């Protein structure tokens, strides 16, 4: 695949502040509600439940009372340049959009071979093992026409709520504008997060908040080393969290040293007082 989309128009990306994230799961519910994601009676079967946005619970592993838990909200990473899932797809059902940086998934094209799931290290792709909706319960009444419900036997995943971009563009056209402003197009999880932990915007636009946030020393990405180039970034002041963002051989991880932090002694938090 060509390294072309640096010259694309927009490159949408996301920064998730793990310190602000409260682990409440609103993003997951908002995502499911926004995108007509199926629900089944047993959703504890995490291997087969569909959660485009998924929360991973992590722990610093220390003993009581120094234990600390945190969460990694994980949408699709929309890997740049060469997403591992795109090149493997047999029927061209998933592609990296040059102009938005969004990795699309077309359910009607997908044949359900699941090669993309095998190739994705983030587990961001979900197969429809069942027919979508519980019949005759009236639950199809809350489905939105903006996202097409999936049939069984196809793979689906986070789309960065691209339909919201279309919605924003349509509104812009109605108002005689060709372009959309920052904030006009954000994903459902971004909007829903009650702690405003998620920032969404165009990484190609230096004016956008995300472009500034990704330059911060506390910002990192998941599995950066294997070269997937995710467009979803994370931000945390806690070393143990940042360390869990990737695999490190002993001694490889270098903490972010911040003098201002070191001066503050009042906190007992592990991870905090290490730098």
């Amino acid at each position, binding site marked *: 695949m060509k390294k072309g989309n640096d010259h694309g128009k927009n490159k949408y990306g996301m920064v998730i502040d793990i310190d602000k994230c409260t682990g409440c799961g609103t993003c997951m519910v908002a995502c499911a509600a926004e995108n007509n994601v199926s*629900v089944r009676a047993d959703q504890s079967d995490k291997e087969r439940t569909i959660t485009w946005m998924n929360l991973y619970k992590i722990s610093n592993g220390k003993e009581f*009372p120094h*234990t600390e838990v*945190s969460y990694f909200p994980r949408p699709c990473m929309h890997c740049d340049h060469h997403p591992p899932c795109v090149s493997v797809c047999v029927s061209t059902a998933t592609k990296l959009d040059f102009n938005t940086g969004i990795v699309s998934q077309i359910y009607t094209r997908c044949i359900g071979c699941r090669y993309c799931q095998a190739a994705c290290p983030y587990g961001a792709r979900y197969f429809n093992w069942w027919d*979508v909706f519980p019949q005759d*319960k009236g639950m199809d009444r809350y489905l939105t026409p903006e996202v097409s*419900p999936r049939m069984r036997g196809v793979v689906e995943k986070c789309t960065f709520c691209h339909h919201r971009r279309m919605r924003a563009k349509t509104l812009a056209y109605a108002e005689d504008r060709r372009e959309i402003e920052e904030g006009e197009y954000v994903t459902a999880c971004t909007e829903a997060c009650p702690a405003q932990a998620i920032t969404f915007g165009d990484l190609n636009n230096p004016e956008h908040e995300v472009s500034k946030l990704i330059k911060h020393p506390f910002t990192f990405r998941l599995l950066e080393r294997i070269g997937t180039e995710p467009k979803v970034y994370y931000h945390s002041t806690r070393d143990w969290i940042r360390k869990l963002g990737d695999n490190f051989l002993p001694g490889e991880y270098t903490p972010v040293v911040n003098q201002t932090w070191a001066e503050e002694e009042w906190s007992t938090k592990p991870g905090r007082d290490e730098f």
Partner: protein
Amino acid sequence: MKLTRRNFIAAVVGGIAGIQATPLPWKITDDVAIWTQNWPWVPVPPTGEFTEVSSVCNLCPGGCGIAVKKVDERAVKIEGRTDYPVNPGGICPVGMGGLQLLYDESLRFTGPMKRAGLRGAGEFTEISWGEAFDILAGRISNLRKKGTPEAIAAVDGNPEGTTVSVLIKRLMKAMGSPNYVRPLSITDTYRMGNLLMQGTLAPMAYDLENSDYVLSFGCGLLEGWGAPGRVMNAWGMWHDGNPAKRKTRIVQVESRASNTASKADMWVAPKPGTDGALALGLAHVIIKSGQYDSRFVADHSSGFDDWRSLEGTNHIGFKTLVLEKYSPEQVAKITGVNPKTIVSLAKGFANAKAPVAIYGKGKDSLNGSLYEFMAVQSLNALKGSINRSGGVLLPDPIPLSNLPPLEVDAIASEGLKRPRLDQAGTMRYPFTDSLINNFTDAINRNPKSPVDTLLVFSANPFFTLPDGGGFKNALEKVPFIVSFSPYRDETANMADLILPDCTYLEKIDDIVWPTGLQYPLYGLSKPVVEPLYNTRNTGDVVIELSRAIGESVGSGFPWENFEEALQARAKGLFDAGGGLVSYDPDAPAWQRQKAGNGPKPGYKSFDEMWEGIQSGGMWYRPVSSPKSWQGLFNTPSGKFEFCSKLIAQAIEHYSNKISKKAALKNMGLAAIDDEACMAHYQAPKAGADRSVYPLLMLPYEMINLASGWIPSPPFLYKTIFENQLLKDKSFAAINPKTAAKYHLEEGELVVVKSPAGEVEVRINLFEGAMPGIVYLPLGFGHTAYDEFLKGKGVNPNNIVQAGQDPISGYPVWWNTPVKLVKV
């Protein structure tokens, strides 16, 4: 010519060749593939006009603003409102999934119903509203005719002060029954504590957003306490900007590494039920180091120093009590917290500019302990964090009009004289409004249920009461149960008659002062969609029921419908003046406005105001400058009382009747004299032989699971981790050390046994659990609803063995002794 086989084969070959040159095989191949892309059983959501309706979420007393996206007549998505003061933009996962509660038909009653099967089986036959009213009004009239109106009882889960709860209370009064009870919540503890220490009747008002040091004693800030949209927004704000320059520090006091504890800047883990002792330990350090606000203490408080009464008796003050009994070492023994931590914590609190100590027990849906609250509130007083920005504010009660006085007939006035079944308000529980656990006991204790007809409003006490299944047994004894729930919950399944309410998205309803908010707010939810089924707003039903009963009961409800009653109460909001009905995100309601500088109400008449409330869904008064100290505390001393005179009076009053010793015992007090009037630590009674039940069970709440009377939207189960629920088994979180002691492994099945019962769960080894404690999640274990919720996990309430909190009589649900038995 004879058709030979050879000819036939030639024709077939020709046909096969020929058919390739027609569209048939190719188009069928294509069309069958297209058919799979448009399977008729995959729903195609109809499109239409996209609109948005602003309303208020009524799923919890938090009352966050919601914007419901609609496509034509269908609601398709709930989002948080940015133009609502409580929750600028965000809502909690339960509210986010609210449409499933509206549209999942199998969760709901589709019209008035009569029980058809056995109690609890959930089998009903549909009846008309007329028939339903006839049945119920007939029964009530009968009881009234017999002169036993007190045999009607109501359990009302609507938050206190909402118009529908006011109407229900009024109906009970008009009918002549004193037996109006409500499930308890943390606001009941707040109310009592505020009354005793500050003499105020307004709800608890924590000015979190302006504080720079939030010391939370057990408050599940991230577990759903208060208005989750507000608290989590504040959380985001506290962590905004350069992490090195953050202003607000958050400390969580809790025994388990909950989300709040983990995400806080500091976590202190005392044993459950010892939060009060820890607070007093901090007070000790602060007093000893002289870092307390001496001006507030001297000018605006009483009972701090030792004093001598007019009769000449010596009394000890808060200072002496704390210095004598709550040194860090003493407190360490009680709480298990390192004395050094206590000192550093006290210093952190003392050195902050605008610290606030807040009290709670997880979410706000369960009660707390009175003395714990008083201990925490004493800390605020010590630092002068009362009536100060960033501390505890003392706003006036919300100025809703009182309804016209009710005239009751002779039957009713006789009935009202009969004692309440729960003994609330008697000398034994002098400050308590309602005690549902006693109410349950009264039914269970008597061979024949003293309640003949039980009305249940917006509550599911069968499931939500931490009473070891007591209410369930009581329900079995009550001859006639009427449920007004829109949902097929456990209590409704026991009912004989269902008069279903509309869901919160189908009706008009008010929200009076979300829990913990620092300014008065009146929210109004409105019908986002037309009622889907044959259900009616309970407010209207109550009015109609009163008419159906007739006589003086009916005349007590002069309103055409519920909305008129709402308006009648809202008149007071207009008369009080100064309230806003629209919200500008640039001027947050918690930001202190200089007098006269804030936004102005844009309405001129009541009708204009009401229109504003209806479209915006709110009336509120932003935080204004601190109030004058004059007459601020309505206590006997006119000051903040470290040592509550009301408690002293109540004890004395009761002692006049029976011996002092008996009085103290009945009130549940171990301490005597002045100590009993002040915040102090009293070890809860061991309810069982601790050698048989060596562990403690503590129910815990999660923000992503509804544990109250509202069912969890099925979407929420996506957010539950597989070490919290797996298939039909929920998990008990225990410390690996505890597990090692009992040779338990991750995922192993165990029975948690308490004197009240047992439940089967799987083990989850969690380092963040305090050793010796078994943590069970609340919200699982439904036996009602549909396949999404039914039979998933266990309900820890079923094994709670609750003691009684001193004075308040509230259940002490955090002290259940248990043992673990391998399956």
